[in-house]
């Protein structure tokens, strides 16, 4: 086969690296009214230079990249001075994703990611073909994807009523914080005093003119509103056109509005699923669903572009139904789920963590308060009055969420305070066990059992289970694996 190149149109994408310096220069000129001091000029110059270098490197890499498909492997060559040659055997490919940023879409281009999976001791070694024509991307995907059967009906498609779960994600609020923080850091690095910026001064004088309660409640409402709006638009962008298909031995997820993501997964790589119910979502009886599969990363990766996500935030019943479908089990798989709770010692541990944390926080306040000023003492007791009940509630919630058991072919563990996670692991995929104990756990007769798997986080914990129960559960899940430990000859 001949070597192929990336589309020359990609040069336009490398030019987008020049947008941030242009934007920051324009913004500075706008904010200062065209009056730049030396520090600002140096900062802007540095920014421009950095991005010009990045754009140049990007363009060189683009021009030197070649790839080809041989009978049994994919090869990629790139670099001008430092030449790299990568080869991935085709039978090792674990997933093929086709994505596109808005700019790629505008130019009719796609990014093809060929993932050879996680290798022990090495980082992720993806082969990325950034800048392939739409038709070629689709044909690559079909060529490299062994499960090329006729599509069955979709297991799940987007339902717009799920949109109501979107604002229940806290990432939106955090996103607003990041943007505001970044804005002020930019002003700082450009040596611009926020008080000199017209609209900020107006906002400030507006706030100080209001009664105290309004000056507190209004910004909180605005931040929450903006946060919800961010979450909503992230949801729409990320899950537009969502479609989950199970065809033969493959699972196929497509989604995304501007940036389309498409994840293809061989079922042989699936080791289980994780259902997460963070608090606001749990109140609304909603849940998220992630695959635990070789080569897909963990559910803790960034939630917006998470490759292991199988379902948007959706009703829990929907997550249950899709779980059963993915695992090819009876639809009521999760309804009969019975988990054994943890012993009381686990509650005591969580209470002492929570209260210990509060104590660590309060101790310096009380100490300094006694030495210096009564104000600190007042802050101490007021904050304790809020934090102690919070810590207790968190500990009780964490304790009640603890659970573990066997359910058919799956080992199930549930844990978490704010975010309750239920993990179903295929028993056949367990590679080994780790039994961890601190001095305190030893004294309380409990231990944390970790089931090692070759996917997701690598190890899934059954926290603070009574030692005898844990041993019984582990040996029932993986018969014979604990023989050395139990002294079985």
């Amino acid at each position: 086969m001949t070597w192929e190149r990336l589309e020359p149109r990609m040069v336009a994408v490398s030019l987008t690296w020049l947008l941030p310096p242009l934007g920051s220069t324009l913004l500075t000129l706008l904010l200062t009214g065209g009056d730049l001091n030396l520090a600002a000029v140096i900062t802007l110059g540095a920014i421009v230079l950095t991005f010009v270098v990045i754009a140049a490197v990007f363009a060189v890499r683009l021009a030197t990249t070649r790839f080809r498909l041989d009978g049994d492997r994919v090869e990629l060559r790139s670099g001008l001075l430092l030449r790299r040659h990568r080869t991935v055997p085709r039978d090792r490919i674990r997933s093929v994703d086709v994505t596109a940023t808005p700019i790629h879409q505008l130019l009719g281009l796609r990014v093809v990611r060929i993932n050879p999976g996680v290798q022990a001791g090495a980082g992720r070694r993806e082969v990325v073909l950034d800048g392939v024509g739409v038709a070629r991307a689709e044909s690559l995907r079909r060529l490299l994807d062994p499960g090329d059967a006729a599509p069955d009906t979709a297991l799940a498609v987007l339902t717009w009523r799920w949109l109501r779960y979107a604002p229940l994600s806290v990432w939106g609020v955090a996103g607003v914080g990041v943007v505001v923080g970044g804005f002020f850091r930019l002003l700082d690095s450009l040596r611009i005093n926020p008080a000199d910026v017209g609209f900020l001064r107006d906002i400030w004088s507006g706030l100080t003119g209001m009664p105290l309660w309004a000056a507190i409640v209004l910004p909180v409402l605005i931040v929450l509103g903006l946060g919800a709006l961010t979450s909503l638009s992230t949801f729409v962008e990320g899950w537009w056109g969502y479609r989950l298909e199970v065809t033969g031995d493959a699972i196929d997820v497509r989604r995304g509005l501007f940036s389309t993501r498409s994840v293809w997964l061989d079922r042989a790589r699936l080791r289980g699923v994780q259902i997460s119910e963070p608090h606001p979502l749990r109140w609304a009886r909603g849940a998220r669903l992630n695959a635990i599969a070789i080569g897909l990363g963990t559910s803790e990766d960034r939630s917006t572009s998470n490759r292991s996500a199988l379902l948007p935030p959706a009703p829990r019943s929907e997550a249950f139904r899709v779980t059963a479908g993915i695992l090819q089990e009876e639809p009521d798989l999760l309804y009969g789920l019975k988990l054994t709770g943890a012993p009381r010692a686990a509650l005591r541990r969580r209470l002492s963590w929570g209260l210990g944390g509060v104590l660590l926080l309060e101790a310096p306040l009380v100490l300094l308060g006694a030495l210096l000023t009564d104000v600190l003492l007042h802050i101490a007791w007021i904050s304790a009055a809020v934090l102690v009940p919070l810590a207790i509630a968190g500990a009780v919630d964490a304790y009640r969420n603890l659970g573990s058991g066997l359910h058919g072919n799956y080992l199930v563990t549930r844990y978490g305070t704010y975010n309750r996670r239920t993990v179903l692991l295929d028993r056949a995929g367990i590679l080994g066990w780790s039994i961890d104990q601190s001095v305190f756990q030893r004294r309380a007769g409990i231990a944390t059992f970790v089931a090692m798997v070759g996917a997701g986080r690598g190890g899934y914990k059954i926290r603070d289970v009574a030692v005898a129960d844990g041993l019984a559960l582990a040996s029932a899940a993986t018969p014979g694996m604990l023989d050395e430990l139990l002294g079985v000859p």
Partner: protein
Amino acid sequence: MLAGVKAPRNRLDRRAVRWWIVQALVVATPPVAVLALLTALIAPARTWLGLSLAITGALAVAYVVVMPWWRYRVHRWEVTDDAVYALSGWWWQRRRITPMARIQTVDTASGPIQRLFGLAGLVVTTASAAGPVHIQGLDRSLAAELAQTLATRAQAIPGDGQ
């Protein structure tokens, strides 16, 4: 000890205690030395610096004296026909059991201090991303021999190649 659980059969080499003492000294000396220097040089803050020096010093001494022996009492290992079983740690203890069929690679590895005492560690990797099983502080020739044995045994058992 864990009720109803058998500990692995073998202890480490006694030289491991000395290795851990040296390692603990390497970790604990710099903060104590820096604090001592500051206490000597900065007269106005001598009370506070001296206090933190005393606390840090006591912790460091306790670490150097207690940790190596505690570890030596805990650490154990065993290699059977079916599995590798290792117990390690001191305050936090961890026992790891890995079936022979799931072993992907076996290496020996030793840092400079460990080599100084003629010791080496065994590193047993599986497909799990949660990290390999380490058996540190073995006699160097024993570690090499074990690595050989494990490699042949793991190869003899049909693995699942995940």
